[in-house]
């Protein structure tokens, strides 16, 4: 099929077209026994007309056809092995020898991290929800009067009075698993305040230091103790039952007397280390009490 040589030049040229020729129809055109009339044709989904093209498409999907585009088009990252290096994020000692491995580690564990309690989340959306529900005192106040717990599914605008109601909605409406790991209710024990994280990492601070570190004074007298306990205790590290974030060791859930599933151990993940001399792990207030 020979194309006129000027055609390629025309394609490369400016948009536009020649003035259309005048249309002038004779009423006799297309009359019996003739029947031609110009018609727009449309084909629906399952029409046989599409068979050939569909088959080609699927051959491509099944990798039987060559890939689309030559090598330069195909974005491909080499699996580069590099000399061992350590994650530079404070408190993390993970070692890597490939850049892609590091990329995923960073995004999974350090990208969406709560600056208050250091929990890591898989997405910015879940992190924002967490901060709102766990660390925003205004949220708690408002939640007493109106539905504040937002559904976790992006695009769903429903809000709920309690996190339990929200969970029920997630299970019934969105078919989420009942033990969805990114929706554990926060055990409500008063206000959760923003705390200067540097002080908390040390195991030897005093109450005086703690007050100095507080960016917000406790609204309720005596709550400092409680906050401290919470701060040092289970809330400080991903722990049983109340963590809405990437969990630490996942252990096969054992049947609990209360019927509540405890899916996480108290152990601090081995990827977190707290600097020289620090013991690995917190002595939680709760545990301390038990031992005394």
């Amino acid at each position, binding site marked *: 099929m020979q194309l006129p040589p000027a055609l390629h030049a025309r394609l490369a*040229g400016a948009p536009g077209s020649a003035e259309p020729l005048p249309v002038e129809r004779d009423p006799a055109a297309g009359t019996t026994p003739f029947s031609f009339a110009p018609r727009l044709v*449309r084909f629906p989904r399952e029409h046989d007309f599409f068979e050939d093209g569909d088959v080609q498409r699927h051959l491509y999907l099944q990798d039987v056809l060559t*890939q689309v*585009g030559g090598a330069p088009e195909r974005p491909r990252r080499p699996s580069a092995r590099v000399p061992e290096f350590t994650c530079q994020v404070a408190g993390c000692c993970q070692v890597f020898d490939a850049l892609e491995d590091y990329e995923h580690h960073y995004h999974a564990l350090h990208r969406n991290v709560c600056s208050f309690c250091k929990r890591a989340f898989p997405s910015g959306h879940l992190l924002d929800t967490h901060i709102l529900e766990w660390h925003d005192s205004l949220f708690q106040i408002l939640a007493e009067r109106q539905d504040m717990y937002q559904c976790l*599914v992006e695009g769903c605008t429903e809000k709920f009075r309690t996190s339990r109601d929200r969970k029920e909605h997630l299970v019934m409406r969105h078919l989420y698993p009942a033990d969805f790991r990114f929706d554990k209710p926060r055990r409500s024990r008063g206000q959760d305040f923003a705390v200067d994280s540097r002080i908390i990492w040390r195991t030897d601070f005093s109450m005086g230091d703690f007050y100095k570190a507080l960016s917000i004074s406790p609204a309720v007298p005596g709550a400092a103790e409680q906050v401290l306990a919470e701060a040092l205790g289970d809330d400080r590290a991903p722990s049983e039952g109340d963590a809405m974030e990437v969990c630490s060791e996942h252990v096969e859930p054992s049947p609990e007397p209360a019927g509540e599933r405890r899916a996480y151990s108290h152990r601090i993940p081995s990827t977190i280390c707290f600097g020289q001399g620090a013991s690995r792990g917190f002595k939680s207030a709760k545990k301390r009490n038990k031992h005394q």
Partner: protein
Amino acid sequence: MWSRQRGGLKPLRCGVEQLRCRRREREAALRKARREQQLVSKRLLRDEALEEAEEGCVAMIFGEAEIQQFLRLAQRGTEEKEREGALVSLRRGLQCPETQQTFIRLEGSIRTLVGLLTSNQALLQLEAARCLHELSHSEQSAVVEACLPATSYLLTYLSGHSSDFIELCLYTLGNLIVESEAVRRQLLPQGIVPALAACIQSPHLTVLEALGYALSQLLQAKEAPEKIIPSVLGSTLPQHMLQLLQPGPKLNLGVAVEFAWCLHYIICSQVNNALLITQGALSTLGLLLLDLAGAVQRTEDAGLELLACPVLRCLSNLLTEAAAEAVGGQLQLRDERVVAALFILLQFLLQKQPSLLPEGLWLLNNLTANSPSFCTSLLSLDLIEPLLHLLSVSNVVLTVLCNVAEKGPAYCQRLWPGPLLSSLLDTLAFSDTEVVGQSLELLQLLFLYQPGAAQAFLQQSGLQALQRHEEVAQLQDRVHALQQTALHG
């Protein structure tokens, strides 16, 4: 890490004849599947470089005990490398259907795998995801549906940032989606459409291509027109798709192919094409057509027909919408470069993929049917002769010629003289009633609008050509009418 290995079988392992044979078998299977409306294909992401590095271990069949051991080690091992290694071994085993079956029947296995998928060890997450991916690719429904407990997490991870991980989740989801309506009935309420809408804003091409794949699978579902397409149209997905199809230096072919197919499935379902038109679909696709025509001239790129096909379909179907008329004035769709581009593509298809020629001609029909402008372009760009060359491919060529001729004497004048007459005499020699019928229609128009056409026809033994069909039921009346006109004016 996990980069996709494409390109089919390695030449070392299979001879050329074997490859061709395999392709023929696959093609036959796909045609059969399509006729039964069971056209389903999955993608498997495997990093062959990675596998070679793992020192040529062949996928093994593992028994229960071995699987349990791997899982235990992955979950509770003390050394990270040990845990990872256990999952890698498991993943290799899961390349085997037998191991897959054993795995899903083992109590707690999926639960453990999901736990590892959501653990705080990034590399364990990745390996667990790869295991799930192998399962998702299985041909056994039971194996695929065993992955269902993981879907809420796969969707959650789409909002993350790790592009390789997201790519993997997307291909896994794509495989799950095509498995059955039951799977989709879970994924839809779990928010797959909003999750994809959020994810489509990723800057990573690998993620976008994977997303396009997953979305195309979703849109191809049988229940899509009622249950899926409306919510897709209601989301921001169409705008982003159209953006990704904009021609220019940023256009990536692999990504464009996926989203062009997505658009095709939406458009041919005829749910709300007017909305797409208001979002600029006609304009974008028109420009893309021009770009494609430019590309086929420049490169010997394998695969441009994979993009051409859905683009041709989308344009053709959109042109039938009433809304298309309304915006016609503003668009490229008055631009004669569109006709030039189409012919360049037709030439390309003639060499590369002749089976797609009817689709290109379909677009030509829809462009010319009600458009004096495009009919004029066909004439002024000297495209009648190339068009006649395609007569043997499809009688839509005759329909297009009729589209031009029926617009009156000014048009017929430009059709005459030339090769048209001899081509028509050729087609009259066919026995196919359809073809002959169309030729007769064209002749009537030419006799009506072009003085001298009838004369020339007679001189070229046209009457004899007509005589052949005098007894054919569908053609008789028209044959006689033409005979009368030719003889008596």
